[in-house]
C-alpha cells in the first residue's frame, strides 16, 4: 500500500529535477533568465576566478554522475552478473523484478533497500524500472548481460540520450516494452535507432521536448515498427499556433510598410 505512494512521492521530487535540468540546457526560452543567473553570467564574463569555480562545480557534478554509473566489476566477479545488475539498479534508486517472481524490489524514499534480492542467485531480471534515475550510456554496461529483459522503463531520465537508445540493440531479441517519455535529451536521430528492437510491442514516446516535428516523427515511427503500439501524448498538434504566427508576421509587415511610408516622402 505504501509502496505506490512512496513511488509517487519520489516521482514528484524527480520531476522538479527534470524541469531544472531542462532550463539549464535550453537558452531559447522566451523569458529572460532569473536575476541570480544573470548576475552569475555577468561575473563569469568579468572574472577568471568565478569562471574557474563554475567550471569546477560543473566538473564535480559530472564526476559524481560518472561514479554512480561506473561498471560494477567487483560485484560481478563475486556475485555474478545478475546480482550485479540488481545491485546497480537498486543503488540508482530504481526497481526491478526477477524472472519467475512477482515481487518488485525497490528502494524507499531515503534510498534504503532490503538485501533480500541476494537470495535469488542466477535469476535474470525480467522487468526494470529506472524512471527518474541518472542512468546513462556507461551505466547500461551493468545491464548488458540481461538478455531476457522484457520491460524497461526510462521515464524522465535526464541522462538518457540518443547514444543510450542506440545501445539498446543489445536487448533486441527480448525487449517488448520500452518507456522513454519525458526524457529531455532524446532527439529524432535516437528514435531512428529503435529500429533494431524488432520484438518491441509497446513504446511510449510522450512529451519528448527534443523532437522538432512530433506529428511527423510519430507517423514515421509507426511505419518503422509495424508490430508496435506507440503511445505519444503530450504533444500540441494544433495548427492554431501556426496561424497565430502568420498573423503576427502580417502585422509586422504592415507596420513596416507604414514606417517606410512615413520616412520616405512620396
Amino acid at each position, binding site marked *: 500500500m505504501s509502496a505506490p505512494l512512496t513511488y509517487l512521492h519520489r516521482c514528484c521530487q524527480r520531476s522538479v529535477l527534470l524541469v531544472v535540468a531542462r532550463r539549464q540546457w535550453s537558452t531559447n526560452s522566451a523569458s529572460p533568465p532569473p536575476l541570480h543567473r544573470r548576475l552569475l553570467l555577468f561575473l*563569469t564574463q568579468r572574472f577568471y576566478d568565478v569562471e574557474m569555480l563554475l567550471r569546477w562545480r560543473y566538473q564535480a557534478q559530472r564526476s559524481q554522475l560518472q561514479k554512480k554509473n561506473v561498471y560494477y566489476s567487483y560485484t560481478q566477479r563475486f556475485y555474478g552478473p545478475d546480482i550485479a545488475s540488481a545491485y546497480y539498479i537498486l543503488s540508482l534508486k530504481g526497481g526491478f523484478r526477477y524472472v519467475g517472481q512477482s515481487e518488485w524490489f525497490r528502494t524507499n524514499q531515503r534510498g534504503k533497500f532490503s538485501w533480500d534480492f541476494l537470495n535469488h542467485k542466477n535469476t535474470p531480471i525480467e522487468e526494470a524500472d529506472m524512471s527518474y534515475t541518472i542512468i546513462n550510456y556507461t551505466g547500461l554496461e551493468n545491464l548488458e548481460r540481461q538478455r531476457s529483459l522484457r520491460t524497461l522503463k526510462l521515464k524522465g531520465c535526464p541522462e538518457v540520450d540518443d547514444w543510450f*537508445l542506440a545501445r539498446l540493440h543489445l536487448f533486441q531479441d527480448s525487449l517488448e516494452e520500452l518507456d522513454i517519455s519525458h526524457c529531455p535529451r532524446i532527439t529524432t536521430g535516437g528514435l531512428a535507432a529503435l529500429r533494431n528492437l524488432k520484438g518491441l510491442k509497446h513504446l511510449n514516446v510522450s512529451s519528448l521536448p527534443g523532437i522538432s516535428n512530433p506529428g511527423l516523427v510519430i507517423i514515421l515511427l509507426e511505419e518503422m515498427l509495424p508490430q508496435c503500439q506507440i503511445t505519444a501524448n503530450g504533444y500540441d498538434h494544433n495548427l492554431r499556433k501556426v496561424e497565430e504566427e502568420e498573423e503576427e508576421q502580417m502585422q509586422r509587415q504592415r507596420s513596416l510598410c507604414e514606417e517606410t511610408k512615413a520616412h520616405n516622402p512620396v
Partner: protein
Amino acid sequence: MSAMWRRLQVKVGPARGLLTSTQVTRRSTWLNGHLSLCQSFSTGTSLRNDFFKDLETHMEAMRKKAMDALPGSSWTPLEINPNLPPERADIVIVGGGVVGWSIAYWLKQKEMVRGGVRVLVVEKDPTYSQASTVLSAGGIRQQFSLPENIHLSLASADFIRNINEHLGVLNEDPIDLQFNHLGYLFLASEAVAHIMEENYSTQRYAGAKVSLLSPTQLKEKFPWVNTEGVVLASYGLENEGWFDPWTLLNAFKRKAISMGAIQCCGEVTEFKYTTSVITTTDGEKLDLRRIKSVKVQMPHSLEYQPVECAIVVNAAGAFSGKLTEMLGIGFGPKQSIAGIPLPVEPRKRYVYVVRCPDGPGLDTPFLIDYSGVYVRREGLGGNYITGASPEEVTSAWAGFYDYNTFDQNAIIGTHPLINNMYFATGFSGHGLQHSPAVGRAVAELILDGNYKTLDLSGFSFNRILTQEPKLERNIV
C-alpha cells in the same frame, strides 16, 4: 566626460521636437505665398528637420572621437590591419578545416600551462566554399579493413558521444550535432563476399559492433532493398551514423579559440627555411630543411605577414600537395627521397539530392553498394543524398576531397627531409569521421614526441618512400 555628452544628447531630443513644430507651420505659410492656414497639407518632412538630424550625427561623431582620445581606447594613429596574424607563433596550422581545428583544440587541451603553446590556424577561405569539411556527407562508420581506421573511428565516436564535456564552453548552448544513429549497410556481390567476411572478423576483433546478414535476413530487415546479386550484407549496429559537419567544425573552433588559439584568414604563399646538407650511409647527399617562418598573405591584397614559427602542421586537405611543393618536395632527382612528391591531390566528388516521397522512411541506413553508389536519408521530408548520378535530381553540390593517389589512406607524421612539418592529410573522404582521434594523435606527436593512445605509425610517410601502399579493401 562621456556622461556629459550623453546628457547633452538627451537634451537635444525634446528640444528638437519643440522647434520642429514651429518650423513646419512657418514653412507652410511661405510656400503658399500668402497668409493661409497654419496647417500643413504636405506629407513630406520639412527641410529644417535635416539640420537637427545632422546635428545628432555630428554629436555622435564628436562623442566617438572624444572616447577614442581618452586612454583605454584601441585607436592608434598607425593604421595597422587588425586581421594580420601575430609575428611569432609556436605552431602554425595551415588549413582551418575540421582536422586543422581538431589539432588546434587538442594542442590547447594538452598544454600543461595556460598559454603554453601559441597556436595559429591559417585558413584561406572563411566561407569554406571549397573545403572538404562542409561538403562531405557527414557519415561515421567502423566498417573498415585496417584496424587503425577502425580504432580511429571508435575513438572519434567516443569523442562525439561526450562532445559536450570535451567541447562545451561555459554558459553557451550545448552542442547539437543532429547525429542520426543508423548504421552503414554494405552490400557485397559474389566476387567480394570473402573480403567482407575477413573485414567482419577484423572489425569484431577491434571492438566494432557489426553484424553480417544473409539476403533473406536482409530482406526481412529492410524489405525495400533490391537483393538481386547481393550475397552478403554487413550492417553496423552502434556508433555509426551521420551528423552535421559544420556544427562539429564550429564546436572545435569555438572551444579552441576560447582556450587561446589564434585564428587568421589568409593564405600561406611561401616558406622561409634553412637547408643543411647531410650525407647518408650510402654516400648520397640530402637537403635537410627546417622551416623558419611562414609568409601569410592577406586575402585580395598584397599585404603579408611573415610568422616565425617552430612547427608547421599541414592540414590543408585538398591543397596540401601544393603546400609541400613550396618546400621543394617532389622536385629533386627522380630516384631520391626528395623526388617523391606528396601524393595528395584535389579530386572532385559530386553529391546529389533526390526526392522520393515513397522512399524507405525513418530507418534508412547509409546504404553502400558494391558498385560504389551510396545513399542516405536527409531530414524527414523524403529527401535522399546520393553519390553517383541518377536521372532526375533536385539539387547537387560538388566539393574537393583530399584524395591520396597512392593508397587512399591518411598521411600522418613528419617528412624525413623536413624537420618541423607534420602532415595530417590525404584522408580521401574519411577526414571528418577521424578528425577528433587524428587531432589527438598529432597533438601527442608534437607535444609528447610519440603516439600515446593510438599507434598510427602505419600511416607515416615512410610507406610512400618505400612504395608499400597500405590499401583499404572495400572503400567508397
